[in-house]
């Protein structure tokens, strides 16, 4: 199958590029780690106000970890569009297109490298949260154990793919890395703050609560959060996958449409 082998070679190429650009890797990890540290310190006293954090949540760290994972997925996904712009600008995309290689493999290779990267980053953030929890004597664990961690990886990677779709489509449409970052940033912040990612819904103004209920980010965060705190609450997890799936269909269709235009 040339699709599979070509996808593999594209995947390896992007991972090699990432590993050989430690600065890129460092900064894409540094921001979520910074957020994890900052937010959990700044807002740790929230846990002392009765009724702010949901029942059964012992610390703000435990509450916010899922939100930080999502934020990291956002940041990583935005770099995806950047990479396609770089390949178009350098002519490398054309170099691939004049070979008989499978065309979908160009996208699949990129997307699978995005997914792989976001899983590694997620693992690092979870490990760090565990360390923070241990230091502060407010243990952070994923209550559903190893299976739960794998389901979190899956949810985050799936969400990352859906979001890569936006940045890839934007990248191919605008051919400008700056535009991808600008638009990406503008989309990211409201989506993150108008969701249940960083603050308990009950803590937020009513209109924000209303917006958050329709925000796909809330669904993804809630799914990860229940896996960390409450257990296998399929009533939260399955709808989240459904919503992410819907977003993925829309964004990846846009990507495919733009890709067809670039390729033909």
């Amino acid at each position, binding site marked *: 199958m040339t699709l599979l*082998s070509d996808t593999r070679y594209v995947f390896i190429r992007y991972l090699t590029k990432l590993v050989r650009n430690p600065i890129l890797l460092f900064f894409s990890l540094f921001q979520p780690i910074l957020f994890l540290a900052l937010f959990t310190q700044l807002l740790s006293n929230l846990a002392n106000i009765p009724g702010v954090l949901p029942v059964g949540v012992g610390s703000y760290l435990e509450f916010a970890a899922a939100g930080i994972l999502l934020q990291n997925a956002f940041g990583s996904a935005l770099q995806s569009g950047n990479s396609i712009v770089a390949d178009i600008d350098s002519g490398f995309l*054309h*170099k691939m297109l*004049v*070979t*008989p290689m499978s065309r979908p493999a160009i996208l699949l290779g990129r997307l699978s490298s995005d997914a792989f990267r976001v899983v590694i980053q997620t693992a690092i953030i979870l490990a760090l949260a565990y360390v923070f929890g241990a230091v502060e004597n407010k243990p952070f664990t994923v209550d559903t154990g190893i299976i739960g961690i794998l389901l979190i990886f899956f949810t985050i990677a799936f969400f990352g793919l859906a979001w890569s779709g936006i940045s890839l489509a934007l990248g191919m449409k605008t051919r400008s890395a700056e535009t991808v970052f600008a638009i990406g940033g503008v989309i990211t912040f409201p989506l993150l703050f108008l969701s249940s990612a960083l603050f308990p819904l009950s803590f937020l103004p009513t209109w924000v609560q209303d917006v958050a209920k329709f925000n796909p980010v809330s669904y993804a965060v809630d799914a990860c959060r229940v896996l960390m705190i409450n257990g296998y609450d399929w009533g939260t997890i399955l709808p989240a996958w459904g919503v992410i799936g819907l977003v993925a269909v829309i964004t990846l269709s846009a990507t495919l449409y733009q890709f067809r235009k670039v390729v033909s």
Partner: protein
Amino acid sequence: MDKPFSVPAYPEIAYLALSCCCSEIATTYSYVIKFKNNSRTLMTDIITVKNLVEIYSDGTKAVDDITFNVAEGEFFGFLGPNGAGKSTTIKILTTLLRKTGGTVTVAGYDVEKQAAAIRKIIGVQSQETTVDGDLTGRENITLQGHFHQMKSGEIKNRVNELLTLVGLESAAEKRARNYSGGMKKRLDLATALVHKPKILFLDEPTTGLDPQSRTAIWSYLEKLNKEEGITIFLTTQYLEEADKLCKRLAIIDVGKIVASGSPSELKREIGADSIRISLEDCQKDKLNAKELIKSLTDVNEIIDSEECLTVYAKNAGLLIPDIVRALDSSGIRLASITFSSPSLDDVFIKHTGKRIRTEELVKAPSTMFGGRR
């Protein structure tokens, strides 16, 4: 081909036959060329382009009804300035761009309906140097081999062969980011050759290179064409490059082929030395000067050019004093007068009225890490 004697593919032949003043010579010439034309059709045309038109979405006519063929094993070139339509034509031939009109076949395959078959047998070096700076030289070539569905063992041997060919063995394990401009171009050429293509497309392969790197690339290309019989289609804005490498070339300007033939044929077509004249007041004196020079004996042709006027004559050395005297006696002040034997530049000027504009030939790209190994 269907009509071996049909002229449209070689408009300059008709021109040549007509422009020869002596009818005897004209007959001989047209006979020779007809014969050549006939024998050419016996060879297989590996690229055929008929009435190719490319109009961009903004309405720009990048390629305006061009027709040409390239024979198998031929070293064929497109010579023209920036924006002439060279890259556009290459993009269509290499299946990257859809044409607006016309028919194009490569190795007998239709460029749009059978694109996949074409991609297996062509090697392409685009104008931008497209090596991945984060990968080593060896990795760059290997990756390209994988994209061509070659077996790993086969790729390994081929990569070593190519690294030797382009003289990059000792830099093979270094990341391409740290290569000099010339090394990157050589690596790029190697990646285009990994699957032993039948046809190699090169879009300005030496633009921006220093003279040594240019000479090195030229020698690889000549070797590939001669020893391995690879058909090479090259575009260039360098007259010297076209003259040295191409067995046959087409001169292209604003989307049209204005002349084609072998470099020597094209130069012979000029049939004369060129004398470039610039006047102190070109606007005012141009017409008078033209009349005066026309009346001199031994003047073949006189055309407007960038300097002011260009005169074609059999023996420029003898004519120059006459021109100077004629202009002087009519009070027309001369700024400069130079002459040269025919070059492709003259061919270009003759057909387009302007000199081919190229960026500075010797300007090497500045590289921060431009260490030569």
